[in-house]
């Protein structure tokens, strides 16, 4: 750790440039996401739409203000949220394969969504909808409920069991949920199955302005809370013994980290579906970008890089338009996969990242 601090001091000048470049990249990506889409809209019309001008032809005002703008904001916040949650999970479990979904929170969201889509939209299990409010519940509420249910389970367990046990719990929860979802899929109508599949592909496009009024505050709050996890994360990197020696309660900080990561993941899953890859790739990208394992650097780094990556992925999935509307998850993995592979192969030994 000490040596890292020294490194960072000696790299002060370029480090500042990294921040500036990242900040500029975020603004650029955001603007590009507003200006590019499957519909070609002239530059000045985009500006006019953003400044609130009415009466633009072809619904352009609506496309920019009500479609691209909320979509881009959802992308930014989702990318940041998933990257931070991924970073927290990787450090918490000292495992470079950990991602935001490892606790099973998103599986809970998945279950909620699956029940609403597959049961609500017709199928043999429709009787479930008659018994309860499930059928009328909207998708976001159901996904949030499912995520919360698993979250409560994980939080309860986290008081009692070791971190590794939590890891296994998360994996098992995913298996159980997936098994149940498969049963639902088997008996659902083709339309419902398609709707469900497209939900699992992940998308920022379903987030409307109204939905942003909940999504953005929740994610912002959780991102602010994540600042409190910086010290515990750094301490955990050194092991529980060391953490105790610097006055940090490993069990308490573990719960705090899980709480924050769960809110971040749960919110994104509920509003945008399951968006893979960003949460595992961006933390690795940041570690090599900053050549550091200090979370004081990595956490804000993940916010910026994560937001950029999500915006770029959204842009690529949209810009081909027409018949080539790409699933977001495929874009993140297709573009992100080779990048992260390159980074990993270059570093050869990832396990060292979790040694101080």
């Amino acid at each position: 750790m000490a040596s890292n601090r020294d490194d960072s001091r000696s790299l002060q000048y370029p480090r500042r440039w990294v921040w500036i470049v990242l900040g500029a990249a975020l603004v650029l990506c955001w603007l590009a996401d507003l200006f590019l889409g499957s519909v070609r809209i002239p530059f000045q019309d985009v500006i006019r739409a953003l400044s609130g001008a009415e009466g633009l032809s072809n619904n352009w005002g609506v496309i920019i203000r009500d479609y691209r703008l909320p979509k881009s904001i959802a992308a930014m916040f989702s990318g940041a949220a998933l990257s931070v949650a991924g970073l927290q999970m990787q450090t918490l479990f000292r495992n470079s394969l950990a991602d935001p979904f490892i606790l099973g929170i998103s599986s809970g969201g998945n279950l909620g969504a699956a029940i609403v889509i597959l049961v609500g939209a017709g199928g043999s299990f429709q009787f479930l909808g008659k018994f309860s409010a499930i059928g009328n519940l909207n998708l976001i509420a159901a996904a949030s409920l499912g995520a919360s249910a698993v979250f409560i389970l994980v939080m309860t367990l986290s008081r009692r069991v070791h971190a590794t046990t939590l890891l296994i719990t998360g994996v098992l929860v995913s298996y159980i949920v997936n098994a149940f979802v498969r049963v639902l899929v088997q008996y659902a109508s083709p339309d419902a199955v398609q709707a469900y599949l497209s939900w699992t592909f992940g998308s920022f496009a379903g987030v409307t302005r109204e939905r942003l009024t909940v999504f953005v505050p929740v994610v912002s709050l959780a991102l602010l809370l994540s600042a409190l996890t910086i010290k515990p994360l750094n301490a955990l990197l050194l092991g529980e013994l060391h953490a105790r020696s610097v006055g940090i309660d490993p069990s308490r900080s573990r719960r705090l980290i899980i709480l924050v990561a769960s809110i971040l993941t749960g919110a994104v899953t509920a509003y945008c579906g399951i968006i893979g890859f960003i949460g595992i790739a961006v933390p690795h990208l940041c570690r090599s970008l900053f050549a550091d394992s200090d979370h004081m650097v990595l956490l804000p780094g993940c916010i910026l890089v994560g937001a950029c990556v999500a915006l770029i992925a959204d842009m690529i999935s949209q810009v081909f338009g027409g018949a080539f509307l790409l699933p977001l998850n495929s874009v993140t993995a297709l573009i992100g996969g080779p990048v992260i592979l390159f980074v990993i192969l270059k570093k050869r030994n990832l396990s060292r990242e979790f040694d101080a």
Partner: protein
Amino acid sequence: MKRTAYTIRFILAILFSALIFSARPAAAQTETTAEIKYAKAFTIENRDGYKILTVVRPWRNADREFQYLIVPKGKPIPDGYLNAQIIQVPIEKIAVLAATHFAYLNRLGMNEKLIAVANPEYIYSEQVHNGVDSGTIAAVGNGPDINLEKLLSAEPELTTTFAMGKSTKDDYQQLIDKGIPTVVFSDYMEESPLGRAEWLKVMALFFGQEEEADRIFADIERRYTELVELTRDLDKKPKVLMGFHMNGKWNVPGGKSVQAAYVRDAGGDYLWADDETSGRFPLSFEAVLEKGASADFWFDLSLSWTGIDDLINSDPRYASIQAYADRRVFNNNLQLSPWGANAFNETGLVNPDIVLSDLIRLMHPDLLPDHEPVYYRNLSADGF
């Protein structure tokens, strides 16, 4: 003995044909092709004492055909068709593995021959629903994953199914191997409403109901073409949008789809009429918002939407489409059964003239002032 006689007769026939009618060798046989005017996915040939049904386009981009010999019970089975399945008619027990196949059965009045169905919850008919509940009709599983044991124990003489090709889920081979004649229905491959309805003639073959089917279809065709005449020379054709989006992806019916044909025939100007797709193709939400901004009418949305609130709760951005502001959003689910099946997909399939009347009534009320829509509901109910 019999075979030798046939062979000799066959050789003689060929010889005579070759010698005498060398220019028109087919003239010696009693062979006609049944008149199939609109459907493109099957053919029927009438031979002496039997018929040949060929499903030529069993699924999209199929590289094979399915051939069936329709032989009256008690008549000899003709030789020389190694790859054909033999169906001895009239049959008494049929299993249908898709709800749409039941529509044809129902239209021919052959309901009582139904002994097994798959996915009964998609079947609108209350009679079938009750039959499944009381056990007189077997429910044999869902979609392509059928419960083979249940199907076999129902002992159907014929099963109708559908296939996607190159899919491990396709069940036709398994059924054929178990000795059940299995017809692969591909009515959904048709590009016109009349073509789809014409599959009546296929179902009729199995019950000796060809004449009835011809009569029913001729009626449908007459009424349908009369309606098309009504709209032919209209100068003002409203712009039409169809479908809805899921997570930013809008599955738009192609310009060569049945839906597009309905809109064209009803005197509408479908926004993607120039497209060459026969199924659906995906577009981004913003692309549809742009093109659909000026749509006068909006048809065929999510099955579960029965009011304008359902639409707006699903996505408030739909409000930017002109048809919404004009309260001209119509869904084809006016008749939903308590278990969620849509009559449009059942009786609508075999009554394309009524579906067309609905659409004409909605887009050009002056042309059919007395017609009350049968399948379409106005999502903003007070707009009528």
